[in-house]
């Protein structure tokens, strides 16, 4: 969003970068939920974002979950304590982890400690995010079909010295056994560098003896 960073100058502050990253995560998560058909298509509404038609879910509980998430992620990003965010897709019936969308975050600690801003063109960041969104959408071509009803969850990997609000609990990493992994594009605001990786469970017919 151009309002966070002045369009004329390309200065990015820690606050602005955190906002960009957490917003990116919100849209990316929605996009994943739509593309992987975790929620039915009818529950999504189209908005324009990053120069693309992005889909956002309408369901109240998911919306509030997302907004709580993004505000907490933003807080952690500003403190420089967030290491990665993982969106996990699990089978509703068995609770088995089927897909794991891994967003790894590298924070420039100098900015967190000293509060110096960085310079990067807003447009370029937008372009990078666009590329990721397109990749997520096209991921349906190689990701295995999710035939059963799925639920999702979001895990945050943080430093141990972070202040955890009472709404967050410790969790196990929900790893997938023998995953296939695909690395997607990442983007960089010069303060936070985000890498995207999706790991998914092998399709049944691929398995060796």
């Amino acid at each position: 969003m151009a309002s966070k960073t002045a369009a004329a100058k390309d200065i990015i502050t820690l606050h602005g970068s955190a906002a960009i990253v957490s917003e990116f995560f919100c849209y990316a998560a929605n996009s994943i939920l739509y593309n992987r058909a975790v929620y039915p298509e009818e529950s999504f509404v189209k908005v324009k974002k990053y120069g693309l038609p992005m889909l956002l879910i309408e369901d109240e509980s998911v919306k509030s979950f997302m907004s709580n998430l993004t505000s907490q992620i933003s807080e952690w990003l500003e403190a420089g304590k967030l290491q990665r965010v993982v969106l996990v897709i699990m089978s509703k019936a068995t609770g088995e982890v089927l897909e794991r969308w891994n967003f790894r975050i590298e924070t420039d600690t100098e900015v967190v400690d000293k509060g110096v801003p960085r310079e990067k063109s807003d447009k370029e960041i937008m372009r990078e995010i666009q590329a990721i969104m397109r990749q997520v959408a096209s991921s349906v071509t190689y990701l295995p079909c999710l035939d059963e009803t799925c639920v999702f969850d979001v895990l945050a990997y943080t430093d141990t010295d972070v202040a955890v609000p009472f709404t967050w609990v410790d969790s196990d990493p929900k790893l997938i056994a023998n995953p296939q992994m695909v690395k997607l594009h990442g983007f960089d605001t010069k303060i936070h560098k985000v890498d995207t990786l999706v790991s998914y469970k092998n399709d049944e017919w691929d398995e060796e003896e």
Partner: protein
Amino acid sequence: MDAGMSTPSYLKAQTRCPLQEHFLPRKSSKENLDRFIPNRSAMDFDYAHYALMEGRKGKDQSAAVSSPSKEAYRKQLAETMNLNHTRILAFRNKPQAPVDLLPTHHSASLHQQPKSVKPRRYIPQTSERTLDAPDIVDDFYLNLLDWGSANVLAIALDHTVYLWDASTGSTSELVTIDEEKGPVTSINWAPDGRHVAIGLNNSEVQLWDSASNRQLRTLNGCHQSRVGSLAWNNHILTTGGMDGQIVNNDVRIRSHIVETYRGHTQEVCGLKWSGSGQQLASGGNDNVVHIWDRSVASSNSTTQWLHRLEEHTSAVKALAWCPFQANLLATGGGGGDRTIKFWNSHTGACLNSVDTGSQVCSLLWSKNERELLSSHGFTQNQLTLWKYPSMVKMAELTGHTSRVLYMAQSPDGCTVASAAGDETLRFWNVFGVPETTKKAAPKTALEPFSHVNRIR
């Protein structure tokens, strides 16, 4: 030095350490380590698989995809190996799962527990048992009842402390305090269920061993007036006095006063440590609730409180930490306030306030369900069971004829004991019937990799 007598060698070994256990010395440090028993749930299968299968190309994926993904995988593993300074967190309130629009053919879903409302359990409206409690002091600010983890109830009747063993139903007297020291103003079991702390009117605190009926020590000098509230946190006994001071005593060492919390200006009648032992909630006659945090280090002798909650308009004696939600504290106000308030002890925010219509003397959370029990005074002298978080009244238990000042919960979480100025001690099976609360084994295996059918 030898006393001149040479002791025979077989006696020497015995007299060396009379009270020590005999330890068999290990022959070598590696003696017990010849068998590696893997803990499946703690294994990182990703890394293990990678380590075994290194160099093997995936047959089904194109080569263009596998090399950058391998790179990323390697990098990710390097990070994962540094897990000792990473915490993995998940948001507590999960979003609603998508509704099944098409009938699924998975038979597994049929065996799942239905998400529908559980059938309401029957809550007996009368007390299961009533015992006599003659001479019990009818003072709002005291805490004269506690149920220890060894299933023994301790109750203070004027100058005497009695122990009632819940498993056998037998009563025994622990101690009768001297006339000038008493009456007993507070009583609290230590976490081990064996030692009990007794606070007295003359500001002394006595520590007793209930197994041998012996007094172990007396803690003096913490307060200048009666000790109305006590709370244990491992080896720390926290005492709250009529002087408004709260003192942390380490019962193992000689100079037992380790910390003093100053903040209350009137009697401290409610004192409870959180389940984690990290935070202490205190309520006073000054209508103030303080939350003290152990991580707040004190440079001088007085420690600053973490939160000061002044919303109550009457004395706060009822305090209860929620067992199923961290950082949630419930407080109840006295006659002029009559509300139960819920607080986030991390931020100090008031989450909810419910008017109960009657002074709240005590609060207990259910260990099995999301329910809260409160005890009241005028006019009904009832115990009210609330559903949390909707705060819908599930039951009102009457029977006492005077305000229900003291409540305690059994260690199995099913029964609540309540005592009042009407000199009765009543037991209510309000949280469940003792036999049926034994939960069946969880239906799905909780180990994260239990579905992996290959063992490598």
